């Protein structure tokens, strides 16, 4: 069982590392874009709200695979070649950003209206209220959903690698090894271990964050 792993260690480790890089890049994009979209959705301007809403509905309801086809093969045929790395990370990041935006928005709404009114009547400005009262509390409630989204994103990174983009991630390397050795069960077992390590690590990190920022009751 272990010999498949040791003999093909270079494939497994390089694939795992590519997966980690895809995840890290997409996570960054998802957080930044998600924050902006969430800001749009709670902005006082009605058109900005609609724009944010349109983004969320489109990117949440479209299959990731379709996004990958559009961003890589589609754009390349149109004369815009952004390469597999950019296309893969951007697709996964923008897709996850729609979910992040929804999580952040519901976090902001979870802060009671009375808090904001109290803060304003104490003489805080709107910006100060947001920064000192709303966001610190919203952050706490948002940690758990963000953890779920990160785990879903880790799992979705396999779609990026396995679709037409030539990114040699963990799953793609597992296919290569299984085609070479014919030991499908063993190869996929070790790839599964690789994914469980990633999702398990994300679970532990977000659980620790949740504990660290939990409200003492």
């Amino acid at each position, binding site marked *: 069982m272990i010999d498949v792993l040791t003999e093909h260690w270079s494939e497994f480790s390089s694939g795992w590392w590519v997966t980690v890089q895809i995840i890290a890049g997409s996570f960054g994009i998802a957080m930044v874009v998600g924050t902006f979209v969430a800001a749009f959705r709670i902005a006082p301007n009605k058109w900005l709200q609609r724009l944010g809403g349109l983004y969320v509905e489109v990117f949440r*309801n*479209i*299959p990731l695979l379709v996004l990958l086809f559009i961003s890589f093969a589609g*754009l390349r*045929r149109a004369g815009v070649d952004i390469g597999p790395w950019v296309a893969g990370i951007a697709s996964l990041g923008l897709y996850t950003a729609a979910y992040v935006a929804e999580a952040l928005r519901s976090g902001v709404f979870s802060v009671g209206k009375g808090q904001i009114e109290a803060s304003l009547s104490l003489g805080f400005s709107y910006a100060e209220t947001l920064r000192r009262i709303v966001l610190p509390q919203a952050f706490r409630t948002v940690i*758990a959903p963000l953890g779920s989204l990160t785990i879903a994103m880790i799992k*979705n990174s396999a779609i990026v690698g396995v679709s037409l983009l030539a990114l040699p991630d963990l799953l793609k390397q597992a296919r290569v090894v*299984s085609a070479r050795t014919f030991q499908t*069960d063993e190869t996929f077992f070790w790839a599964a271990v690789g994914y469980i390590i990633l999702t398990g690590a994300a679970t532990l990190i977000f659980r620790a964050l949740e504990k660290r920022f939990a409200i003492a009751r």
Partner: protein
Amino acid sequence: MSYLFSPDNWEWLWTGNNARFILEGFLINLEIAVISIIFALIFGLVLALLRLSVLKPVSFLAGAWVDVFRNLPLIFLILYFALGLPQSWKQAWEDAMPSWAPEAFQSGLVLGAFMGLILYNSAVLAEIMRAGILSLPKGQGEAASALGMTRRQALRYVILPQGLRRMVPATVSQLITLNKDTTLVSIIAITEVMRRGRIVTSSGFFGDVTAPILQVFIFIGFLFVVVNYLLSRLSRRLEIRERKITGTKLKRVGGLEDQVAADPV
């Protein structure tokens, strides 16, 4: 932009049978999603009940099973079952499939796709159902046993009817995710909408009009957005209705993209 909206690049949509060909492919995706969700609901309920079993080893094993399948990428499971299932199983599937079934279902690889989709989604739904059952106030189960019901009767007549009703909105939103995930079966060469899109883009399939990849897949994406948007509206409406009836707050189930489950207040 001019490339995107140029009428020449959209001409394929009105030419020949292109649009119909893609729509038929999309229908296959919906069929796969519906079949998978039905089986996933059945297996999910079994898994949820096993996990809530009073026998410790049974509940531990069911929990481990659910956690493993929930934490693996779906595409990983589909690929594994497509590659790893014994040839004889695939052959048996091909022999058993009646000739009137859609062409995409004739391939033995579909069995692998269904196994991946059902195992993954049953694990996800099991977790949703467990949250729903646990969200019931403890008094419900206690009252049932005080009335002299056995545990089985309490489940059958008191707990499940209430717990599962709370799960309807979450199940509909899982159907949205599943609907998107059906595109993954194109990776193992099943001719659903993604494959059909590729076929349409390969030059000269219907007439001499070229169908650019960008426009074809934007059209396919549009189909998914429309259907899934309607489903999400339905889910939202069911959620609000449920909240009005039961007065429960909603809580997110971990490890999922956008699942909510009822939470005891």
